[in-house]
């Protein structure tokens, strides 16, 4: 469904952040995107949705295709209309309006009022807390509540492809599980998902396939099960297997600074 090939992105005309990155999100699948801070995950999502402009970023090479159609550098509003919605990094909810209005802003591109009402009901169903706080000003919600709102808002667009930038950030463990289930459900209902996560356990447990990003390049990719089994991934993202986790209290004061590239 989404295919990114050989993408290069430059910020401020000088900072080269993506260096020839290629990636596929097959129709109907969940793809996990892992990578250290600053690897360029968010930048990739921005490049897909056309949101580089406000950050003084530019695509200098490569293409982004949605179902074969070239959407490289398209207008963001246009991209949303074509069925891509995203949960932005840092939540970015509209703090000064109510929860309810935030959700309705998410449905801006949709025509049918009845469908919007359906989605609305579904979101409140997924996040009962939001139903309680419907009339509250979104900015006063707790961090986790805001995260739920951000996910709910993206769902309101009823996208064909959902881009999630660290959806589990700041959520309570129980909720992380719920979000994982929600993603799975959405996916079952036909939405493809590109999931950027630091919580690799969570991401790989629902993903069909995954990519690992390192300084703007894909350094590893494969089916989720393969990645889960990979020893490097276990060491750096999963903290070894269940039961054999080493305690944070016993971390050595030196680290193995291994990287795949460089």
């Amino acid at each position, binding site marked *: 469904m989404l295919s990114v090939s050989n993408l290069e992105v430059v910020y401020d005309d000088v900072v080269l952040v993506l260096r020839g990155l290629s990636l596929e999100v097959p129709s109907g699948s969940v793809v996990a995107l892992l990578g*250290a*801070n*600053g690897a360029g995950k968010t930048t990739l999502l921005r490049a897909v949705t056309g949101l580089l402009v406000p950050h003084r970023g530019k695509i200098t090479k490569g293409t982004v295709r949605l179902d074969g159609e070239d959407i490289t550098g398209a207008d963001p509003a246009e991209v949303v209309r074509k069925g891509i919605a995203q949960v932005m990094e*840092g939540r970015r909810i509209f703090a000064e309006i109510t929860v309810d209005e935030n959700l309705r802003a998410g449905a801006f591109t949709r025509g049918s009022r009845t469908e919007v009402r359906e989605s609305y009901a579904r979101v409140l169903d997924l996040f009962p*807390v939001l139903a309680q*706080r419907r009339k*509250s000003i979104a900015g*006063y*919600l*707790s*961090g*986790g*509540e805001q*995260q*739920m709102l951000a996910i709910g808002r993206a769902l309101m667009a009823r996208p064909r492809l959902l881009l999630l930038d*660290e959806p589990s*950030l*700041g*959520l*309570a*463990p*129980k*909720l*992380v*599980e*719920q979000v994982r289930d929600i993603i799975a459900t959405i996916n079952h209902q036909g939405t493809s998902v590109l999931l950027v996560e*630091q919580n*690799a356990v969570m991401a790989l447990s629902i993903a069909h396939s995954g990519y690992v990003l390192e300084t703007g390049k894909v350094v590893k990719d494969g089916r989720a099960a393969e990645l889960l089994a990979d020893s490097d991934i276990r060491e*750096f*993202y*999963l*903290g070894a297997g269940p039961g054999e*986790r080493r*305690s*944070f*209290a016993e*971390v050595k*004061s030196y*680290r193995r600074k291994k990287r795949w590239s460089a």
Partner: protein
Amino acid sequence: MERVNSLLSVRDLTLRFGGVTALDSVSFDVDRGELFAVIGPNGAGKTSIFNCLNGVYRPQQGSITLDGRSLLGRPPAAVAAMGVARTFQNLGLFGHLTLVENLMLGRHHLMRTGFFAGMFWWGRAKREEITHRAAVEEIIELLELEPYRKMPAGMLPYGVAKRAELGRALAMEPRLLLLDEPVAGMNLEETEDTARYLLEVRRELGLAMILVEHDMSLVMDLADRVLALDFGVAIATGKPSEIQDDPQVVEAYLGGAR
């Protein structure tokens, strides 16, 4: 029950926003040098506790004392001067200032230079800048922030920004350190780093800390005691291992993931 070694003592703290009760008669103590964790579902009131301690929110009821002196009713800056430092859940760095300047701001309440002295630079202002800069450099070294010194905080990578915030809080030379989700959004490696810094800080400075965190493995590994909140109500307090198995906590917070 009075604790012998208590630094912070919170009693019957109640905070309401219109119809929402964010905190409902919460009480707890934090001992000197203790690492005290607060957990609970989203919206349980963890950040609100910090906001009450800091003087950002005015609770409707209850008392907060630090070393026997009440914190209630004091403006945030006064609380800071009494030795309470904090990191923020959504990053509270000053985006246009460099990392060094952010850390120097942590030392604001330890410095004296006013408008006049600052303008004239030579003399006290200069001496003060230099001595405090040295203190800040120690923290930079401790947290391995050297490469980012002159970078505007707004441009720091997320993990570094979180570390810088910790640095700024440490620069305040606090007696009590409040950490609001210090490892949210970090990968395993960075989480390990942060854990290491926290332990180091604790070992070297012997600070009392309150840690709010959803990463249960971190909480379980580091905390001396844990307070679990749900809907503003304290549902359990105790050793991490006790809390982990508390059915109420499992039900409200941990779910299957513990």
